[in-house]
């Protein structure tokens, strides 16, 4: 038996060690999934017009989406987008719609990729892909709605089946532009219509590009959305202040009522019910949380109180055997069995006890009557 328990604890330790090891392994797996970078990862950049990029960008997990439909140019790169517009919105956020394709260069594994919608919302995925066997290329088309932000990256999207991050950049032609509000200016054209212009470093205007201006308009709309959000915060703060004021008002009102009650009690000369209240005072006198010492001090009083308890049958459960039995009140059982004889026995017993107690009274009084007796019996206890 001793050997068994020794081995038992050893097995328990081994099981705990295995569980801990398994937990660590699982934790590592979860961590890896959250930061998984596929060897086939691609990073795509969206450009509003035809910037030329080296085809090498596609070879190192970075491809460039190009505008237009120049397939000659397209096939030297990883993908393209054909058009976009800002006529869509989702949950109040202005979205730019991209229609494009990812073009692979003979790597058939790309055919089965699917677009994930974070944060872009795709309406069409690579299920619509087709192969160009003559050029040994695959065209994986897609349509996506991407939210506009006020930075040069207007969003990102992911391409499955592995997690792949796609950056979307805005440029006006070749140079990257930071779309801060200081570079955006609203001017009037020759017909008096307000149009959006983009300032360059010399505070001149960049060449007008309708695509950029359209997206700038979307950015401005997003700013308005942010303003709305700020207004929402202000409304929330106002609500909080109102609630705070309401709470303060309630507290002040409660304090006022309490003061009025005290004044009423002080000025009340009615003494009706005073005796009852005095009795309640004594009855409700609480010795408080007496703690452990007071528990012991008050034990004799509890004992005296318990002497007035009426009899109730005692239920006893035997441990390990789980058997219970009941001890009935003895006097009731005996009275039922022997009738009036029990009453006579009770009377005799109590008479003898009372006789002994009364005799004790008499002895004490007799001793007290002796003027030469200085004995204090309390000290003899």
């Amino acid at each position, binding site marked *: 038996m001793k050997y068994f328990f020794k081995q038992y604890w050893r097995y328990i330790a081994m099981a705990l060690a295995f569980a801990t090891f398994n937990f660590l392994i699982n934790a590592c797996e979860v961590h890896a999934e959250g930061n998984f970078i596929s060897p086939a990862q691609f990073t795509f950049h969206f450009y509003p017009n035809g910037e030329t990029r080296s085809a090498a960008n596609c070879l190192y997990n970075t491809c460039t989406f190009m505008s237009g439909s120049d397939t000659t140019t397209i096939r030297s790169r990883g993908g393209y987008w054909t058009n976009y517009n800002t006529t869509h919105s989702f949950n109040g956020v202005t979205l730019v719609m991209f229609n494009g394709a990812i073009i692979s260069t003979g790597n058939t594994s790309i055919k089965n990729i699917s677009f994930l919608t974070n944060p872009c919302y795709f309406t069409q995925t690579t299920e619509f892909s087709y192969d160009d066997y003559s050029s040994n290329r695959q065209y994986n088309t897609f349509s996506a709605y991407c939210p506009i932000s006020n930075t040069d990256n207007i969003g990102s999207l992911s391409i499955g089946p592995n997690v792949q991050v796609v950056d979307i950049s805005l440029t006006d032609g070749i140079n990257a532009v930071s779309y801060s509000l200081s570079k955006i200016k609203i001017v009037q054209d020759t017909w008096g219509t307000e149009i959006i212009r983009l300032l360059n470093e010399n505070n001149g205007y960049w060449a007008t590009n309708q695509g950029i201006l359209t997206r700038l308009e979307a950015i401005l709309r997003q700013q308005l959305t942010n303003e709305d959000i700020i207004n929402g915060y202000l409304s929330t703060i106002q609500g909080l202040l109102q609630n705070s004021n309401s709470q303060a008002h309630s507290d002040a009102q409660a304090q006022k009522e309490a003061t009025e009650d005290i004044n009423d009690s002080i000025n009340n000369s009615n003494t009706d019910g005073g*005796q009852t209240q*005095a*009795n309640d*005072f*004594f*009855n409700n*006198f609480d*010795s*408080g949380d*007496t*703690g*452990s*010492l*007071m*528990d*012991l*001090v*008050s*034990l004799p*009083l*509890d*004992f*005296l109180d*318990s*002497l*007035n*308890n*009426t*009899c*109730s*049958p*005692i239920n006893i459960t035997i441990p390990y055997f789980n058997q219970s039995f009941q*001890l009935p*009140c*003895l*006097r*009731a059982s005996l009275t039922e069995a022997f009738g009036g004889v*029990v009453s006579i*026995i*009770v009377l005799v*017993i*109590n008479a003898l*006890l*009372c006789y002994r*107690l*009364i005799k*004790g*009274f008499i002895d*004490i009084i007799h*001793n*007290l009557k002796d*003027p030469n007796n*200085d*004995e*204090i*019996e*309390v000290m003899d*206890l």
Partner: protein
Amino acid sequence: MINALIKGIFNIVLGLVNLILTPINALILTFIPDLGNIFGIIRQFFTTCFTYIGWVRDASFIEGYTISLAIAYWTFKLTAPLAVSTIKLAVKWYNSLKV
């Protein structure tokens, strides 16, 4: 009214005792809490025992008036001799001073 007054006196005495014991009890709970737990266990034990007193009293055929008489006897035995002896002592001192 007299009953309430006596109960009130008892409660006041208990309150005063509690007032005295409160800091001691706080010290015990702070520095030797296990001792406080032991006191609590003792109290719990006796409280459990007290619940069976009714059954014991019934089985011993002792009536309530006998118990009342016994309590009165012991109260008298513990208080009256002390009071009378104190009076006797005071009278003896008085007589000694008078001489």
